[in-house]
C-alpha cells in the first residue's frame, strides 16, 4: 500500500470502524442468527427452525398480504390525489396560495403519536365524529378497530392523509419546472386543457412522479407506526399487521431473534426486488 493511501485510510479509520461495528457486523450477525434456533439456551444451528417455518407460516403470508394491499391500493390513490392537489395548487386562479401549500404540508409536521391519538378518537365506535357523520346520512356505525377490512381502510385513510400533501408539494415543484411556453404553443394549436394535461403535463412530470412512487413504496414496506398506534399493534387479530410489525412481534414480543432475522432478510430481498421492478418500469425507452 502506498504511503498516501495509508494516510487516507488512517483518516477514514474512525468512520470505517463505526461502520463495521454498527452496520457490517449486525448484518452478518443477523444473517447467522437467521439460521439458529434462538428459543433455546444456548442457541443452536437449525435451518428449519426459522427458514423452514417462514414459508409455512400463515401469519407471515398475512403480513405480506397486508403490506401488498397497502402498496397496491394506498400508493396509487395517494399519488393520484397528490397530483390533483399539485395541479390545483399551481392554478393561477388560486388565492392565498401560501396558506394552502402550508395546509397541505401540515400533516407531516404533526407528530405521529399525536395524529394517531386523534385518529383513534375520530374513528371511535360510539363517540367518534366519523361514525356520527355516517349516522347523520343514514349509514350505520362502522366498527373501525374491530373489523379487519374497516381497520385496513382506516389505516389507508390515515397514511394517505399524512403523506398526500408531502407528495403534492414535491409534484408541485415538478409542475413549476415545466416551461410555460410549451402550454402556450399547445393553446395556440387549440389543444384543450384536458389533453394538455395528459399529453404535456403527465409525461414531463414522469420523473418526479416516479420518484414519489419509489419513496412511497419504501415507506409502505416499512410501515410500522400507524398500524402500531392507530389499529393497536396490527389489530384486529393481525388484520392490519404489516411485515414490519410482524418482525417486531416475533423479535420483541415472542423474543425469537432468529425468526425475526429471517423475516428481516426476506423483507430486504423483497425491497430489492420491488426497486428493480420500479427501475425497469421507469426506464427510458430508446
Amino acid at each position: 500500500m502506498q504511503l498516501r493511501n495509508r494516510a487516507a485510510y488512517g483518516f477514514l479509520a474512525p468512520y470505517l470502524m463505526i461502520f463495521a461495528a454498527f452496520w457490517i457486523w449486525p448484518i452478518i450477525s443477523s444473517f447467522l442468527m437467521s439460521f439458529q434456533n434462538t428459543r433455546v439456551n444456548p442457541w443452536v444451528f437449525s435451518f428449519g427452525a426459522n427458514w423452514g417455518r417462514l414459508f409455512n407460516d400463515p401469519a407471515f403470508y398475512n403480513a405480506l398480504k397486508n403490506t401488498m394491499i397497502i402498496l397496491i391500493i394506498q400508493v396509487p390513490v395517494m399519488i393520484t390525489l397528490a397530483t390533483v392537489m399539485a395541479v390545483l395548487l399551481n392554478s393561477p386562479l388560486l388565492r392565498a396560495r401560501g396558506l394552502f401549500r402550508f395546509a397541505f404540508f401540515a400533516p407531516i409536521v404533526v407528530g405521529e403519536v399525536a395524529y394517531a391519538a386523534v385518529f383513534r378518537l375520530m374513528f371511535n365506535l360510539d363517540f367518534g365524529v366519523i361514525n356520527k357523520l355516517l349516522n347523520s346520512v343514514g349509514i350505520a356505525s362502522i366498527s373501525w378497530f374491530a373489523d379487519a377490512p374497516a381497520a385496513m381502510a382506516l389505516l389507508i385513510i390515515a397514511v394517505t392523509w399524512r403523506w398526500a400533501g408531502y407528495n403534492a408539494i414535491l409534484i408541485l415543484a415538478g409542475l413549476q419546472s415545466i416551461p410555460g411556453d410549451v402550454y402556450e404553443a399547445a393553446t395556440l394549436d387549440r389543444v384543450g386543457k384536458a389533453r394538455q394535461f395528459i399529453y404535456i403535463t403527465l409525461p414531463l412530470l414522469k420523473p418526479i412522479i416516479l420518484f414519489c412512487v419509489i419513496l412511497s413504496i419504501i415507506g409502505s414496506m416499512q410501515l410500522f407506526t400507524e398500524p402500531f398506534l392507530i389499529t393497536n399493534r396490527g389489530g384486529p387479530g393481525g388484520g392490519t399487521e404489516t411485515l414490519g410489525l410482524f418482525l417486531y412481534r416475533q423479535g420483541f414480543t415472542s423474543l425469537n431473534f432468529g425468526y425475526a432475522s429471517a423475516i428481516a432478510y426476506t423483507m430486504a430481498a423483497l425491497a430489492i426486488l420491488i426497486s428493480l421492478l420500479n427501475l425497469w418500469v421507469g426506464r427510458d425507452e430508446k
Partner: protein
Amino acid sequence: MSFKFLGATALVAALGMGSATALAQPTEITIWSWDIAASSLKASLEGFNKQFPDIKVNVQDLGNHQVFDKTLAACAAGGDGLPDVVTIENYKAEIFWNRFPDCFANLKDLGYTSEIQAKFPDFKRTELEAGDVPYAMPWDSGPVAVFYRRDYYEKAGVDPKSITTWDDFIAAGKKIAAANPSVVMAQADFNGDSEWFRMISNEQGCGFFSADGQTIAINQPACIATLEKIKQMKDAGTLTAANWDEKVQANTAGTVASQLYGGWYEGTIRTNSPKLAGKWGVYLMPSLAPNGAHAANVGGSSLAISNGSQNKKAAWTYLNYVLGTDEGQITMLKSFGLVPSLLSAEKQPFVSEPQSYWGGQAIWADILGTLPKVVASRGTAFQGDADGIYKATQTKYFAGGYPNAKAALDDAANQIASATGLPIAQ
C-alpha cells in the same frame, strides 16, 4: 463506594421492621409499573416511609406494553438501563426467566425465605419461580367477576342473582338493551386482546397450554365451547368491541351495563367514574353449564428486582413491605382495588366491610371467595406466540373464515405447534 453503600442498606434490611434507620444513607430505588398498579405503589409509600424514611421510592408509570417492551429490550442488552424493580405480569413472566436467567436477582439471596414464600398461594408462584429460583414476588391476583350497573339492570327487571349461565347473560343483555336505549350489555377487546377467551376458558379449566406448560390445549373441548359462546354473544349483540380506553370511556359515559374483568378492575371503575358511586355492583361470572364453575383468574402481577441494581437490599426491603405485609397489601386494595395474593391479607377486616361506592355491597368478600376455586393456568414462555395466533384465529372465525369453532382452534393449535415445537394435547 458501592460496597459501603450496600453495607448500609443491608443494615436497614437487617433492622427489619424497626425504625432505627438513621445510620443509613438515603437510597433511591426506581420502579417501572403502569396504570392503577403504579398508583397503588405510590399509595403505599406513606406507610413505607414511616418505617423506612431513608429509602426513597420513585415509581414510574410507563404503561403496560411499554414496561414489557422496555424490560425485554433491556434484558436483551444484558440488563443495561433497567430500574431497580420491574412490574411483571404473571402470564408473561416465564419468557423472562426462560430467556434471560441472569437478568433478575434470585430473591432467595436477598431474604425471600421459604417461610415468606409459603405466605402466597401456589398458583401465583408457579410462574414466578424457575426450578428453585424465585425471580419475582407475587403481588395481586385477578379473580374474575362481573361489574354491573345496578340501575340499568333494575330498569330492565333483571336480577343479577338469576344469571348463572352465559345463556342467561345473553337473555338478560337483550332485556337490558331494550330497556336502556344506546346501552350495550358488555364489551370485549376484539381488536387487541383475548381477555374474554382467557377468562371463560380458565373458568372451564382450559387454556392455551396445559397446566404443566408442556402441551398445547387450545383445541380441547372446553376451549372450543368457550369460543363458540363468545361468538354467540358477539352475534347476539351482547358483546361489542372496545379496547381498554374505550371501555373506561363507556363506563363513565354510561353506555355499557356490565364489564367482565379481574378484581383489579374495581379500582379502574371507582377512580375513573367517581360520579357513578352507588350505581355499580358486582356478581360472580356466569358459567357454560348451570352447575358449572364460576371462578377464573385474569391478570395479576409480580415485582422482580433487576440483577444490575445497585440497591438490591433496599429494593427487597420495599418488596417485603409492600407485598409481604398486610398493611402494604390492604393499602393497595383500599386505594385501587388490587386484590392481594398474600393469604393473610384476605382475612383483614377491611375485606368483609361493605363498600359505599358499590352500593354497600361487601364486594371483596364476594370476589375473594372465588380465589380458592381458581384453576391454575400457565402462561409459559410462548404466551406471546399463542396469544397472537389465537387473536388472528378469533378474528377470522368471527368473519366466517372457519366452518366452526373446532376447525378454528384446530388450526390455531397447529399454528402454535409449528411456532413453538410443543405437541398438541390429545
